[in-house]
């Protein structure tokens, strides 16, 4: 029983990490048709900015309120980079999808190399509050607090994002744009403003994933974003591109499947099962669990 609880909760912790990365990817793809390979960079920026802030930013630290400040700084940095990327690199290539993908590919290569050049290729120990290293007893299982923190954070972000999408004007524009971008402009709305907004949201969520992922893994390294990104892509495709709710379901399915199969089967088998799940979903429902047809 306690193993089941532990596996479920660690699975949900991983799912939370995927969801934080995937929600932004999904919105960016759904609205702007940009498959954003640079999304892992936003995550890396968030992680390194948090790491840097904990030691260097006045008021920030690795514990208590100081840590909150450090994470806020990391999220802010990730958001800023995302907005800059959209304004400077993506926007001039408006509706030239392949070129936009290519630019994000170049950016992911150059960006990770830049992180590596600045802070070295090796993993660095991540500053984290002492309570995140401890465990909490849940139904007889000792669950790492860092995982619980991720789950809570992802739930809050998911709730906030859905509220934003459903109850604000910009949320309405984004939901409509995911369905039919052209028609949104034909109603007199400058949809490109919404592009910048989804990049900012995605950048913020990814940066938060970077900071909390640092807490969860205990280290930060330049390549961290890249490996997470591939599973986040899988989550986005399974969930249906452009659908945040779909991404949430898919993240949970992928996270749990991975943990359980890796535990009961051999290590690594879970990751392979996830790709198998992707193949099955695509063959049965090419448009994913929800959202628009994934052929754009």
């Amino acid at each position: 029983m306690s193993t089941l609880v532990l596996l479920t909760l660690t699975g949900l912790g991983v799912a939370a990490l995927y969801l934080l990365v995937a929600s932004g990817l999904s919105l960016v793809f759904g609205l702007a048709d940009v498959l954003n390979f640079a999304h892992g960079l936003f995550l890396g920026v968030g992680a390194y900015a948090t790491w840097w802030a904990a030691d260097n930013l006045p008021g920030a630290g690795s514990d208590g309120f100081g840590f909150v400040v450090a994470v806020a700084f990391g999220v802010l940095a990730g958001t800023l980079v995302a907005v800059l990327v959209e304004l400077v690199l993506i926007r001039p290539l408006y509706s030239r999808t392949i070129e936009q993908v290519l630019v994000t590919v170049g950016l992911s290569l150059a960006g990770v190399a830049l992180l590596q050049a600045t802070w070295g290729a090796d993993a660095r120990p991540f500053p984290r509050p002492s309570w995140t290293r401890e465990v909490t007893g849940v139904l007889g299982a000792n669950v790492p607090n860092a995982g619980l923190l991720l789950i809570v954070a992802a739930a809050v972000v998911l709730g906030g994002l859905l509220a934003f999408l459903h109850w604000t004007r910009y949320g309405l524009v984004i939901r409509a744009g995911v369905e039919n971008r052209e028609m949104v402009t034909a109603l007199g709305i400058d949809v490109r403003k919404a592009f910048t907004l989804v990049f900012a949201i995605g950048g913020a969520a990814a940066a938060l994933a970077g900071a909390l992922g640092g807490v969860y893994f205990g280290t930060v390294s330049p390549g961290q974003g890249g490996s997470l990104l591939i599973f986040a892509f899988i989550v986005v495709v399974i969930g249906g591109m452009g659908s945040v709710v779909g991404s949430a379901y898919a993240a949970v399915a992928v996270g749990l499947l991975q943990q359980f199969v890796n535990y009961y089967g051999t290590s690594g088998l879970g990751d392979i099962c996830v790709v198998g799940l992707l193949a099955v979903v695509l063959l049965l429902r090419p448009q994913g669990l929800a959202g628009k047809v994934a052929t754009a």
Partner: protein
Amino acid sequence: MTNSVVEAPPAQVPDELTPGRSRWHGLRPFLPLVALVVAAIVPYSTVNLPGFFEGPLNSPGTLQLLAICLVFGGLAAGYDLLFGRTGMLSFGHALYFAAGVYGTDVLVTRAGLPLWQAALLAVTGGTILAALLGAVALRTVGIAFAMVTLAFAQVGAIVVARDFKLGSGEGLTGGEEGLPLDVSGLPAALVGVTNTVNLYWLALAYLTLVVFVVHRVSGSPTGRVLAGLRDDERRIGVLGLDPYRFKLVAFTLAGGLATAGGVVYCLIVGGASPHVTSSELTLSLLVMVVLGGPGTRWGPVLGGILYMYLDHRLTAFGSSDAVENLPAFLSHPLSQPLFVLGTVFILAVYFFPGGLTSLKSRLTPLLTALRRR
């Protein structure tokens, strides 16, 4: 109606058909042959090109670097069969290359097969793998196809990294350490530093093969259908041709060529390391093709050669005195080849959408304008 498809894609015609002004025009058809001959006799040259290479041209180190460049020239040309000529954005090409590298390595080192059997099995296996996975992945198109191929390739990376064990204690792939090639059973001509020249020629032969195959395919009726698919898939469907089949043929062929490249690469570097399975390898193939000029005969080849050359040489450049003396905020990024290449790539997407091969047509008006003065 069929005629509208059989038309060659407009993008690649002008360069070959417009009469050149230079007096070398008559020699143009023979230029590839000349380049091949020059490349073939390079190992006999003891010329030293300080700055470009560390030793004379025929030193083993230089020849190995050149051989790697040639293999990637071929890989990029094969990848262009998908991206530039058919319009398929695959993010999983590394898988088939890795199948060649690891297939050869595992069959020789772990199973003790002779090289020719291992190579044959690896290439056959890689081609079948491409056909099977292509059959699934091609049920999607566009960006979804890119993601599915990426995910399939990721399985390859996971399998290699997890180092699955077969019965006895030793892992199959060597995990993160990689798997050095057991050379004891290999033909003597391919082993040892002094025989690097043979590997160089092998790489050259591979590149020639790929260029030949891609050239033949793109000139054939199938190739014209592929070009039609790239421009407008619906038009091909309207003609009663099944886009799926043609794309699967291209995908399988490109996969097979990549596997063959993997075999050669495994021999050149003497083993396998997990980085050949990474998605970054596919991304760099994409960068090579776009830098060189997608859909052109020589663009991807040049892009591949240049990229690998820079990737290796920029590391040396980064640790040279000239860069070391720069302030840290400049010297650190410049010592990262991927930073330089990524940045160049982004600039190329913006300013040279046709890649290197378009440079000539862009520079010609400028040069003639300058000459007139």
